[in-house]
Protein backbone atom coordinates (compact mmCIF):
# COMPACT_ATOMS: atom_id res chain seq x y z
CA UNK A 1 0.00 0.00 0.00
CA UNK A 2 2.80 2.37 0.96
CA UNK A 3 4.63 1.49 -2.24
CA UNK A 4 1.51 2.25 -4.28
CA UNK A 5 1.09 5.56 -2.48
CA UNK A 6 4.72 6.46 -3.18
CA UNK A 7 4.29 5.46 -6.81
CA UNK A 8 1.13 7.54 -7.20
CA UNK A 9 2.75 10.49 -5.42
CA UNK A 10 5.75 10.23 -7.73
CA UNK A 11 3.51 10.09 -10.78
CA UNK A 12 1.54 13.08 -9.54
CA UNK A 13 4.70 15.08 -8.94
CA UNK A 14 5.99 14.10 -12.38
CA UNK A 15 2.71 15.20 -13.97
CA UNK A 16 2.84 18.55 -12.17
CA UNK A 17 6.46 19.15 -13.24
CA UNK A 18 5.67 18.15 -16.83
CA UNK A 19 2.61 20.43 -16.90
CA UNK A 20 4.69 23.26 -15.41
CA UNK A 21 7.37 22.88 -18.11
CA UNK A 22 4.80 22.43 -20.87
CA UNK A 23 3.10 25.65 -19.78
CA UNK A 24 6.42 27.51 -19.66
CA UNK A 25 7.41 26.23 -23.09
CA UNK A 26 3.98 27.17 -24.49
CA UNK A 27 4.30 30.73 -23.20
CA UNK A 28 7.86 30.98 -24.53
CA UNK A 29 6.75 29.74 -27.97
CA UNK A 30 3.91 32.25 -28.00
CA UNK A 31 6.21 35.14 -27.09
CA UNK A 32 8.74 34.09 -29.74
CA UNK A 33 5.96 33.87 -32.34
CA UNK A 34 4.70 37.35 -31.45
CA UNK A 35 8.23 38.84 -31.57
CA UNK A 36 8.91 37.13 -34.92
CA UNK A 37 5.61 38.13 -36.53
CA UNK A 38 6.16 41.73 -35.42
CA UNK A 39 9.55 41.66 -37.14
CA UNK A 40 11.38 42.39 -33.90
CA UNK A 41 13.99 39.61 -34.21
CA UNK A 42 17.34 40.70 -35.64
CA UNK A 43 18.19 38.74 -38.79
CA UNK A 44 21.89 39.01 -37.93
CA UNK A 45 21.33 37.17 -34.65
CA UNK A 46 19.41 34.39 -36.46
CA UNK A 47 22.18 34.03 -39.06
CA UNK A 48 24.88 33.96 -36.35
CA UNK A 49 23.03 31.23 -34.48
CA UNK A 50 22.33 29.28 -37.69
CA UNK A 51 26.01 29.36 -38.65
CA UNK A 52 27.04 28.29 -35.16
CA UNK A 53 24.52 25.45 -35.11
CA UNK A 54 24.89 24.33 -38.72
CA UNK A 55 28.56 24.70 -39.55
CA UNK A 56 29.65 23.66 -36.08
CA UNK A 57 27.52 20.51 -36.07
CA UNK A 58 28.17 19.43 -39.67
CA UNK A 59 31.33 17.34 -39.08
CA UNK A 60 29.66 15.30 -36.33
CA UNK A 61 26.48 14.92 -38.39
CA UNK A 62 28.58 13.63 -41.31
CA UNK A 63 30.33 11.09 -39.08
CA UNK A 64 27.08 9.78 -37.55
CA UNK A 65 25.30 9.64 -40.90
CA UNK A 66 28.15 7.74 -42.58
CA UNK A 67 28.22 5.24 -39.71
CA UNK A 68 24.41 4.86 -39.69
CA UNK A 69 24.41 4.11 -43.41
CA UNK A 70 27.33 1.70 -43.15
CA UNK A 71 25.97 -0.21 -40.13
CA UNK A 72 22.47 -0.53 -41.62
CA UNK A 73 23.94 -1.78 -44.86
CA UNK A 74 26.22 -4.29 -43.12
CA UNK A 75 23.48 -5.71 -40.93
CA UNK A 76 21.02 -5.90 -43.81
CA UNK A 77 23.63 -7.58 -45.97
CA UNK A 78 24.33 -10.14 -43.27
CA UNK A 79 20.63 -11.01 -42.86
CA UNK A 80 19.65 -10.98 -46.54
CA UNK A 81 22.57 -12.93 -48.01
CA UNK A 82 21.27 -16.26 -49.21
CA UNK A 83 17.63 -15.62 -48.33
CA UNK A 84 16.32 -12.40 -49.93
CA UNK A 85 17.37 -10.71 -53.20
CA UNK A 86 20.17 -8.39 -52.20
CA UNK A 87 18.83 -5.39 -54.13
CA UNK A 88 16.17 -5.12 -51.37
CA UNK A 89 19.08 -3.87 -49.25
CA UNK A 90 18.83 -0.57 -51.16
CA UNK A 91 15.26 -0.16 -49.97
CA UNK A 92 16.09 -1.09 -46.38
CA UNK A 93 19.00 1.36 -46.20
CA UNK A 94 17.01 4.16 -47.88
CA UNK A 95 13.99 3.72 -45.62
CA UNK A 96 16.01 3.31 -42.43
CA UNK A 97 18.23 6.29 -43.12
CA UNK A 98 15.61 8.68 -44.48
CA UNK A 99 12.69 7.79 -42.21
CA UNK A 100 14.54 7.16 -38.98
CA UNK A 101 18.30 7.28 -38.62
CA UNK A 102 18.99 10.56 -40.45
CA UNK A 103 16.57 12.71 -38.42
CA UNK A 104 17.05 10.96 -35.06
CA UNK A 105 20.86 10.71 -35.13
CA UNK A 106 21.07 14.35 -36.26
CA UNK A 107 18.73 15.31 -33.43
CA UNK A 108 20.96 13.52 -30.92
CA UNK A 109 24.01 15.33 -32.30
CA UNK A 110 22.17 18.66 -31.96
CA UNK A 111 21.02 17.83 -28.41
CA UNK A 112 24.60 17.15 -27.33
CA UNK A 113 26.27 19.90 -29.26
CA UNK A 114 23.70 22.68 -29.47
CA UNK A 115 20.98 22.02 -26.89
CA UNK A 116 23.35 21.46 -23.99
CA UNK A 117 25.35 24.54 -25.00
CA UNK A 118 22.24 26.74 -25.17
CA UNK A 119 21.07 25.66 -21.70
CA UNK A 120 24.52 26.10 -20.18
CA UNK A 121 25.02 29.46 -21.90
CA UNK A 122 21.64 30.93 -20.95
CA UNK A 123 21.80 29.32 -17.51
CA UNK A 124 25.14 30.99 -16.86
CA UNK A 125 23.71 34.29 -18.08
CA UNK A 126 20.77 33.81 -15.71
CA UNK A 127 22.80 33.05 -12.59
CA UNK A 128 25.33 35.81 -13.33
CA UNK A 129 22.49 38.37 -13.66
CA UNK A 130 23.17 38.98 -17.37
CA UNK A 131 19.51 38.25 -18.15
CA UNK A 132 18.50 40.79 -15.49
CA UNK A 133 21.00 43.19 -17.05
CA UNK A 134 19.32 42.76 -20.45
CA UNK A 135 15.92 43.46 -18.88
CA UNK A 136 17.26 46.50 -17.04
CA UNK A 137 18.58 47.83 -20.36
CA UNK A 138 15.10 47.63 -21.84
CA UNK A 139 15.85 44.54 -23.96
CA UNK A 140 13.58 41.52 -24.03
CA UNK A 141 15.60 38.28 -23.55
CA UNK A 142 12.95 36.31 -25.44
CA UNK A 143 13.43 38.49 -28.49
CA UNK A 144 17.21 38.84 -28.20
CA UNK A 145 18.18 35.35 -26.99
CA UNK A 146 15.37 32.83 -27.41
CA UNK A 147 13.87 33.77 -30.79
CA UNK A 148 17.12 33.71 -32.82
CA UNK A 149 17.98 30.28 -31.40
CA UNK A 150 14.57 28.81 -32.22
CA UNK A 151 14.46 30.30 -35.73
CA UNK A 152 18.00 29.08 -36.40
CA UNK A 153 17.02 25.59 -35.19
CA UNK A 154 14.01 25.52 -37.53
CA UNK A 155 16.17 26.60 -40.48
CA UNK A 156 19.23 24.48 -39.84
CA UNK A 157 17.88 21.12 -38.64
CA UNK A 158 16.09 20.16 -41.90
CA UNK A 159 19.20 21.18 -43.84
CA UNK A 160 21.43 19.01 -41.67
CA UNK A 161 18.97 16.10 -41.88
CA UNK A 162 18.85 16.47 -45.68
CA UNK A 163 22.65 16.27 -45.80
CA UNK A 164 22.67 13.36 -43.31
CA UNK A 165 20.13 11.46 -45.45
CA UNK A 166 22.17 11.86 -48.66
CA UNK A 167 25.48 11.01 -46.99
CA UNK A 168 23.98 8.05 -45.10
CA UNK A 169 22.47 6.65 -48.30
CA UNK A 170 25.73 7.04 -50.19
CA UNK A 171 27.72 5.46 -47.34
CA UNK A 172 25.23 2.58 -47.22
CA UNK A 173 25.56 2.09 -50.96
CA UNK A 174 29.36 1.98 -50.81
CA UNK A 175 29.26 -0.37 -47.80
CA UNK A 176 26.84 -2.70 -49.63
CA UNK A 177 29.27 -2.94 -52.53
CA UNK A 178 32.29 -3.56 -50.33
CA UNK A 179 30.52 -5.89 -47.90
CA UNK A 180 28.21 -8.06 -50.00
CA UNK A 181 29.27 -7.06 -53.51
CA UNK A 182 25.96 -5.34 -54.38
CA UNK A 183 26.47 -3.06 -57.41
CA UNK A 184 25.45 0.58 -57.26
CA UNK A 185 22.75 0.13 -59.91
CA UNK A 186 21.19 -2.81 -58.06
CA UNK A 187 21.28 -0.85 -54.81
CA UNK A 188 19.58 2.15 -56.44
CA UNK A 189 17.06 -0.14 -58.15
CA UNK A 190 16.12 -1.58 -54.75
CA UNK A 191 16.04 1.87 -53.17
CA UNK A 192 13.64 3.15 -55.87
CA UNK A 193 11.45 0.05 -55.73
CA UNK A 194 9.80 0.87 -52.40
CA UNK A 195 10.48 4.59 -52.39
CA UNK A 196 7.71 7.14 -51.81
CA UNK A 197 8.40 10.81 -52.39
CA UNK A 198 6.45 11.43 -49.20
CA UNK A 199 9.31 9.72 -47.29
CA UNK A 200 11.68 12.62 -47.88
CA UNK A 201 8.99 15.14 -46.92
CA UNK A 202 8.24 13.07 -43.80
CA UNK A 203 11.93 13.08 -42.93
CA UNK A 204 12.21 16.85 -43.26
CA UNK A 205 8.96 17.37 -41.37
CA UNK A 206 10.34 15.31 -38.52
CA UNK A 207 13.58 17.32 -38.72
CA UNK A 208 11.62 20.57 -38.46
CA UNK A 209 9.79 19.26 -35.38
CA UNK A 210 13.14 18.34 -33.81
CA UNK A 211 14.44 21.76 -34.87
CA UNK A 212 11.67 23.31 -32.77
CA UNK A 213 11.85 21.17 -29.65
CA UNK A 214 15.64 21.14 -29.19
CA UNK A 215 16.14 24.93 -29.04
CA UNK A 216 12.84 25.61 -27.26
CA UNK A 217 13.49 23.10 -24.45
CA UNK A 218 17.12 24.14 -24.08
CA UNK A 219 16.21 27.84 -24.03
CA UNK A 220 13.37 27.31 -21.57
CA UNK A 221 15.60 25.32 -19.24
CA UNK A 222 18.42 27.85 -19.52
CA UNK A 223 16.22 30.85 -18.76
CA UNK A 224 14.76 29.23 -15.63
CA UNK A 225 18.11 28.19 -14.17
CA UNK A 226 18.67 29.03 -10.51
CA UNK A 227 21.44 28.35 -8.03
CA UNK A 228 24.89 29.22 -9.33
CA UNK A 229 27.28 26.85 -11.11
CA UNK A 230 25.62 23.81 -9.56
CA UNK A 231 22.27 25.02 -10.85
CA UNK A 232 23.68 25.41 -14.36
CA UNK A 233 24.96 21.82 -14.23
CA UNK A 234 21.60 20.54 -12.98
CA UNK A 235 19.67 22.51 -15.58
CA UNK A 236 21.91 21.29 -18.42
CA UNK A 237 21.55 17.65 -17.39
CA UNK A 238 17.77 17.97 -17.00
CA UNK A 239 17.56 19.77 -20.33
CA UNK A 240 19.45 17.00 -22.16
CA UNK A 241 17.21 14.35 -20.57
CA UNK A 242 14.04 16.29 -21.54
CA UNK A 243 15.30 16.79 -25.09
CA UNK A 244 16.18 13.09 -25.57
CA UNK A 245 12.83 11.94 -24.20
CA UNK A 246 10.94 14.51 -26.27
CA UNK A 247 12.75 13.51 -29.46
CA UNK A 248 12.04 9.83 -28.84
CA UNK A 249 8.37 10.44 -27.97
CA UNK A 250 7.91 12.64 -31.02
CA UNK A 251 9.69 10.02 -33.13
CA UNK A 252 7.22 7.39 -31.91
CA UNK A 253 4.25 9.68 -32.61
CA UNK A 254 5.27 10.46 -36.19
CA UNK A 255 4.54 7.09 -37.92
CA UNK A 256 0.91 6.77 -36.73
CA UNK A 257 0.33 10.43 -37.55
CA UNK A 258 2.02 10.67 -40.94
CA UNK A 259 2.81 7.24 -42.36
CA UNK A 260 -0.60 5.57 -42.29
Amino acid at each position, binding site marked *: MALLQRLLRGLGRGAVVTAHHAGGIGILLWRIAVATLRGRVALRDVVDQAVEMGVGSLPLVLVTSVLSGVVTSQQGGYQFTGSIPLYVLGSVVASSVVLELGPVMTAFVLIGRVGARITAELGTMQV*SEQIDAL*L*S*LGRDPVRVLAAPRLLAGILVTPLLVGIANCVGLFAGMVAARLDVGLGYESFLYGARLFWHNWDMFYSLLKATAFGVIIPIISTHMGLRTRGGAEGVGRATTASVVFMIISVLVLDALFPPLFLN
Partner: protein
Amino acid sequence: MIEYEDVWKAFDVPVLTGVNLRVETGETLSMVGPSGTGKSVLLKTTIELITPDRGSVRIDGETVGTASPRRLQEMRRKVGYVFQYAALFDSMNVFDNVSLGLPEQELKTLPRSEVLRRVCQSLEEVNLDPALVLTKLPAELSGGMRKRVGLARAIVGEPEILLYDEPVTGLDPVNTATVDRLILDIAEHRNVTSIVVTHDIEGALQLSDRVALLDHGKLRFVGTPEEFRSSDDPVVRAFADREAAAAAALKIMEEP
Protein backbone atom coordinates in the same frame (compact mmCIF):
# COMPACT_ATOMS: atom_id res chain seq x y z
CA MET B 1 10.96 59.97 -7.06
CA ILE B 2 10.76 56.30 -6.08
CA GLU B 3 8.12 55.06 -3.65
CA TYR B 4 7.93 51.60 -2.12
CA GLU B 5 4.56 50.98 -0.52
CA ASP B 6 4.05 47.97 1.74
CA VAL B 7 6.35 45.75 -0.37
CA TRP B 8 6.31 42.05 0.54
CA LYS B 9 8.30 39.25 -1.03
CA ALA B 10 8.99 35.67 0.01
CA PHE B 11 11.16 32.93 -1.50
CA ASP B 12 10.11 29.91 0.58
CA VAL B 13 10.83 32.15 3.61
CA PRO B 14 9.73 35.79 3.95
CA VAL B 15 12.37 38.23 2.70
CA LEU B 16 10.58 41.57 2.60
CA THR B 17 7.77 42.07 5.10
CA GLY B 18 6.10 45.36 4.37
CA VAL B 19 8.70 47.92 3.29
CA ASN B 20 7.60 51.53 3.00
CA LEU B 21 10.16 53.99 1.67
CA ARG B 22 10.24 57.15 -0.39
CA VAL B 23 13.37 58.32 -2.22
CA GLU B 24 13.16 61.91 -3.40
CA THR B 25 14.28 63.11 -6.82
CA GLY B 26 18.00 63.88 -6.84
CA GLU B 27 18.53 62.17 -3.49
CA THR B 28 21.20 59.54 -2.81
CA LEU B 29 20.03 56.90 -0.37
CA SER B 30 22.27 54.10 0.87
CA MET B 31 20.66 50.90 2.00
CA VAL B 32 22.57 48.85 4.52
CA GLY B 33 21.76 45.82 6.61
CA PRO B 34 22.82 42.27 7.37
CA SER B 35 23.31 39.86 4.48
CA GLY B 36 20.13 38.14 3.31
CA THR B 37 17.72 40.77 4.59
CA GLY B 38 16.38 41.59 1.15
CA LYS B 39 18.30 44.72 0.15
CA SER B 40 19.04 43.47 -3.37
CA VAL B 41 15.53 42.02 -3.64
CA LEU B 42 14.04 45.42 -2.82
CA LEU B 43 16.31 47.05 -5.40
CA LYS B 44 15.22 44.55 -8.05
CA THR B 45 11.53 45.22 -7.36
CA THR B 46 12.17 48.84 -8.42
CA ILE B 47 12.21 47.88 -12.10
CA GLU B 48 10.22 44.66 -11.77
CA LEU B 49 13.21 42.32 -12.12
CA ILE B 50 11.47 40.71 -9.15
CA THR B 51 7.74 41.09 -8.73
CA PRO B 52 6.58 41.82 -5.16
CA ASP B 53 4.04 39.40 -3.70
CA ARG B 54 2.19 42.37 -2.25
CA GLY B 55 2.48 46.14 -2.31
CA SER B 56 3.67 48.39 -5.08
CA VAL B 57 6.62 50.38 -6.36
CA ARG B 58 6.09 53.72 -8.08
CA ILE B 59 8.53 55.70 -10.17
CA ASP B 60 7.52 59.34 -10.56
CA GLY B 61 4.02 58.39 -9.45
CA GLU B 62 3.60 55.57 -11.99
CA THR B 63 3.16 52.05 -10.63
CA VAL B 64 5.79 49.74 -12.11
CA GLY B 65 3.89 46.49 -11.54
CA THR B 66 0.83 47.48 -13.55
CA ALA B 67 2.69 48.97 -16.52
CA SER B 68 2.28 47.28 -19.92
CA PRO B 69 5.39 45.44 -21.20
CA ARG B 70 6.18 48.31 -23.56
CA ARG B 71 5.69 50.96 -20.86
CA LEU B 72 7.80 48.88 -18.47
CA GLN B 73 10.64 48.85 -21.01
CA GLU B 74 10.36 52.64 -21.29
CA MET B 75 10.40 53.00 -17.51
CA ARG B 76 13.44 50.74 -17.28
CA ARG B 77 15.26 53.00 -19.73
CA LYS B 78 14.96 55.82 -17.21
CA VAL B 79 16.89 53.66 -14.77
CA GLY B 80 20.54 52.62 -14.81
CA TYR B 81 21.28 49.45 -12.84
CA VAL B 82 24.76 48.57 -11.63
CA PHE B 83 24.90 44.88 -10.77
CA GLN B 84 26.90 43.33 -7.96
CA TYR B 85 29.31 41.53 -10.29
CA ALA B 86 28.81 43.99 -13.16
CA ALA B 87 26.84 41.42 -15.23
CA LEU B 88 28.77 42.26 -18.38
CA PHE B 89 28.07 40.11 -21.43
CA ASP B 90 31.00 37.70 -21.66
CA SER B 91 31.02 37.36 -25.44
CA MET B 92 30.96 41.11 -26.09
CA ASN B 93 33.84 43.54 -25.82
CA VAL B 94 33.69 46.67 -23.68
CA PHE B 95 32.42 48.85 -26.54
CA ASP B 96 29.50 46.51 -27.29
CA ASN B 97 28.73 46.09 -23.59
CA VAL B 98 28.61 49.81 -22.90
CA SER B 99 26.76 50.70 -26.10
CA LEU B 100 23.97 48.32 -25.02
CA GLY B 101 23.18 50.93 -22.40
CA LEU B 102 21.91 53.21 -25.16
CA PRO B 103 18.25 52.91 -26.14
CA GLU B 104 17.81 50.39 -28.96
CA GLN B 105 16.32 52.97 -31.32
CA GLU B 106 19.31 55.28 -30.85
CA LEU B 107 21.71 52.40 -31.46
CA LYS B 108 20.00 51.75 -34.78
CA THR B 109 19.77 55.36 -35.94
CA LEU B 110 22.87 57.06 -34.53
CA PRO B 111 26.02 57.06 -36.66
CA ARG B 112 28.64 54.68 -35.28
CA SER B 113 30.98 57.61 -34.62
CA GLU B 114 28.37 59.18 -32.30
CA VAL B 115 27.84 55.87 -30.48
CA LEU B 116 31.61 55.58 -30.09
CA ARG B 117 31.83 59.15 -28.76
CA ARG B 118 29.16 58.53 -26.15
CA VAL B 119 30.66 55.20 -25.09
CA CYS B 120 34.11 56.81 -24.74
CA GLN B 121 32.62 59.72 -22.79
CA SER B 122 31.01 57.30 -20.32
CA LEU B 123 34.20 55.30 -19.95
CA GLU B 124 36.19 58.48 -19.28
CA GLU B 125 33.60 59.53 -16.71
CA VAL B 126 34.34 56.34 -14.75
CA ASN B 127 38.10 56.91 -15.07
CA LEU B 128 38.76 54.28 -17.72
CA ASP B 129 40.91 54.96 -20.77
CA PRO B 130 38.81 54.01 -23.82
CA ALA B 131 41.93 53.38 -25.90
CA LEU B 132 42.98 50.69 -23.43
CA VAL B 133 39.71 48.94 -22.69
CA LEU B 134 37.36 49.46 -25.63
CA THR B 135 38.20 46.23 -27.47
CA LYS B 136 38.82 44.12 -24.40
CA LEU B 137 36.52 41.29 -23.31
CA PRO B 138 35.20 41.34 -19.71
CA ALA B 139 37.42 38.35 -18.85
CA GLU B 140 40.48 40.48 -19.66
CA LEU B 141 39.55 43.15 -17.10
CA SER B 142 40.23 43.32 -13.37
CA GLY B 143 37.30 43.24 -10.91
CA GLY B 144 37.47 47.00 -10.35
CA MET B 145 37.55 47.72 -14.08
CA ARG B 146 34.59 45.43 -14.69
CA LYS B 147 32.59 47.28 -12.06
CA ARG B 148 33.46 50.58 -13.70
CA VAL B 149 32.50 49.27 -17.16
CA GLY B 150 29.19 48.19 -15.60
CA LEU B 151 28.81 51.71 -14.25
CA ALA B 152 29.66 53.21 -17.67
CA ARG B 153 26.97 51.00 -19.23
CA ALA B 154 24.46 52.19 -16.64
CA ILE B 155 25.12 55.90 -17.25
CA VAL B 156 25.63 55.95 -21.04
CA GLY B 157 21.88 56.19 -21.62
CA GLU B 158 21.70 59.22 -19.30
CA PRO B 159 19.26 57.71 -16.79
CA GLU B 160 17.32 59.74 -14.25
CA ILE B 161 17.70 57.04 -11.61
CA LEU B 162 20.73 54.92 -10.73
CA LEU B 163 20.45 51.72 -8.71
CA TYR B 164 23.69 50.27 -7.34
CA ASP B 165 23.70 46.70 -6.05
CA GLU B 166 26.76 46.35 -3.82
CA PRO B 167 29.02 48.35 -6.15
CA VAL B 168 32.15 47.95 -4.01
CA THR B 169 31.81 44.33 -2.87
CA GLY B 170 35.03 42.43 -3.50
CA LEU B 171 37.09 45.52 -4.26
CA ASP B 172 40.30 46.57 -2.51
CA PRO B 173 40.23 49.82 -0.44
CA VAL B 174 41.66 51.94 -3.29
CA ASN B 175 39.11 50.69 -5.82
CA THR B 176 36.37 51.01 -3.18
CA ALA B 177 37.26 54.65 -2.63
CA THR B 178 37.39 55.20 -6.42
CA VAL B 179 33.93 53.72 -6.98
CA ASP B 180 32.48 55.62 -3.99
CA ARG B 181 33.93 58.83 -5.42
CA LEU B 182 32.43 58.02 -8.84
CA ILE B 183 28.99 57.45 -7.33
CA LEU B 184 29.21 60.80 -5.58
CA ASP B 185 30.45 62.61 -8.72
CA ILE B 186 27.77 61.08 -10.93
CA ALA B 187 25.04 61.97 -8.44
CA GLU B 188 26.29 65.57 -8.26
CA HIS B 189 26.98 66.18 -11.94
CA ARG B 190 23.98 64.39 -13.38
CA ASN B 191 21.51 65.16 -10.58
CA VAL B 192 20.23 61.58 -10.61
CA THR B 193 18.25 59.81 -7.92
CA SER B 194 20.43 57.04 -6.52
CA ILE B 195 19.89 54.04 -4.30
CA VAL B 196 23.07 52.29 -3.21
CA VAL B 197 22.84 48.86 -1.61
CA THR B 198 26.10 48.37 0.23
CA HIS B 199 27.98 46.81 3.11
CA ASP B 200 30.55 49.61 3.04
CA ILE B 201 29.22 51.73 5.91
CA GLU B 202 31.96 54.36 5.72
CA GLY B 203 31.32 54.87 2.02
CA ALA B 204 27.56 54.91 2.58
CA LEU B 205 27.83 57.59 5.25
CA GLN B 206 30.07 59.73 3.06
CA LEU B 207 28.12 59.63 -0.17
CA SER B 208 24.49 59.54 0.97
CA ASP B 209 21.89 62.12 1.79
CA ARG B 210 20.09 59.45 3.81
CA VAL B 211 20.83 55.97 5.06
CA ALA B 212 18.25 53.20 5.39
CA LEU B 213 18.82 50.07 7.41
CA LEU B 214 16.90 46.97 6.40
CA ASP B 215 16.68 44.27 9.04
CA HIS B 216 14.65 41.05 8.86
CA GLY B 217 12.71 42.32 5.87
CA LYS B 218 11.67 45.61 7.46
CA LEU B 219 13.15 49.08 7.47
CA ARG B 220 14.61 49.56 10.93
CA PHE B 221 16.10 52.99 10.38
CA VAL B 222 15.90 55.79 7.82
CA GLY B 223 17.74 59.03 8.43
CA THR B 224 20.69 61.24 7.65
CA PRO B 225 24.25 59.97 8.13
CA GLU B 226 24.50 62.12 11.26
CA GLU B 227 21.35 60.58 12.70
CA PHE B 228 22.69 57.14 11.80
CA ARG B 229 25.96 57.78 13.62
CA SER B 230 24.20 59.08 16.74
CA SER B 231 21.42 56.47 16.83
CA ASP B 232 20.91 54.50 20.08
CA ASP B 233 19.37 51.54 18.29
CA PRO B 234 21.71 48.59 19.00
CA VAL B 235 21.31 47.19 15.45
CA VAL B 236 22.21 50.57 13.98
CA ARG B 237 25.07 50.88 16.45
CA ALA B 238 26.40 47.49 15.34
CA PHE B 239 26.60 48.87 11.81
CA ALA B 240 27.78 52.33 12.73
CA ASP B 241 30.91 51.44 14.62
CA ARG B 242 33.34 48.56 14.60
CA GLU B 243 33.49 48.05 18.35
CA ALA B 244 29.72 47.66 18.59
CA ALA B 245 29.83 45.29 15.61
CA ALA B 246 32.53 43.17 17.27
CA ALA B 247 30.49 43.03 20.49
CA ALA B 248 27.38 42.01 18.56
CA ALA B 249 29.34 39.31 16.71
CA LEU B 250 30.73 37.98 19.99
CA LYS B 251 27.24 37.84 21.46
CA ILE B 252 25.97 35.85 18.45
CA MET B 253 28.91 33.42 18.67
CA GLU B 254 28.41 32.89 22.40
CA GLU B 255 24.73 32.06 21.99
CA PRO B 256 24.10 28.30 22.35
